[in-house]
């Protein structure tokens, strides 16, 4: 097994301006079906984009990309508690689309004894570079004892 050179996930290693990723993936129909079922989508089958005719996926299916981005640079830690989130949906993702996602830590601060960080990230079509989704998560990082401080 190769040596893991990623830094430990802790406040000392979370700095404003740190860039994470990119990660690349192809949007899979299996994941889209599973996600649509899990969130109780009214229509469990794929919806056709009236503009392009392509099958599109639920809007927050790749919201979890923030965790994949963090894992490109940092390891371990006790996890975090999701505090805030925003998303701008520019274009829907479609089945079979190649996507590139990358992000930047835009804030890292202590407030009332808790350590917060904000990671802004955006997903683009990997071929055309067209912006699909821009979003940001603000999370409270749990300390090495698993506490919220």
């Amino acid at each position, binding site marked *: 097994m190769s040596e893991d050179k990623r830094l430990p996930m802790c406040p000392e290693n979370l700095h404003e301006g740190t860039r994470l990723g990119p990660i690349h993936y192809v949007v899979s129909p299996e994941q889209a079906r599973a996600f649509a079922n899990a969130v109780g*989508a009214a229509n469990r089958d794929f*919806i056709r984009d009236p503009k392009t005719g392509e099958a599109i996926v639920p809007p*927050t299916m790749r919201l979890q990309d923030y965790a994949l981005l963090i*894992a490109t640079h940092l390891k371990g830690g006790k*996890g975090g*508690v999701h505090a805030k*989130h925003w*998303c701008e949906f520019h274009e829907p993702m479609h089945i079979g689309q190649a996507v590139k996602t990358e992000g930047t830590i835009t804030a890292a601060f202590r407030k009332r004894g808790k350590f917060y960080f904000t990671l802004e990230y955006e997903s683009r079509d990997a071929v055309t570079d067209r912006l699909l989704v821009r979003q940001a998560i603000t999370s409270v990082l749990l300390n090495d004892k698993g506490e919220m401080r």
Partner: protein
Amino acid sequence: MSAAPVEIRLGAEIVSQPYVLDAAAAKAYGEGIESPVRRASRRSIHDDKDAARNAGFVAPIAAGEHTIAVIAQFLADTFGMRFVRGGRLSVALTKPVLFGDILISRARIERIDLDGERAELKIWVENQRGEEVLVGSAAIRMGQA
């Protein structure tokens, strides 16, 4: 995203069907997302009583993004392409969701731009006790895709 016809007028309120966020729903959600591969297993606030207690919760809690996904899907089902192409969402998770909680998503149209291009919504999710577990805002386009 089957966008049932919704009248977009100031003050209109839209309410979802109940969504039971139990362990089975969390498992299904986990199968619909891609998570990082971990070299060592980690007990988390989502599946371990002690980890949840250490973090200040009475029991394991649902992932915040699961609740966000539920209301985002409600908006997508209600407004279709008006939301998924050119829409936005901004939320705060205000209270933990415990497994077994029943969630109702709500949206109220608060403002329609003077140019008639966009509508702004207040959105929130309540549990079965009427407590708000998520609050925020959203925007949709008024025109079709």
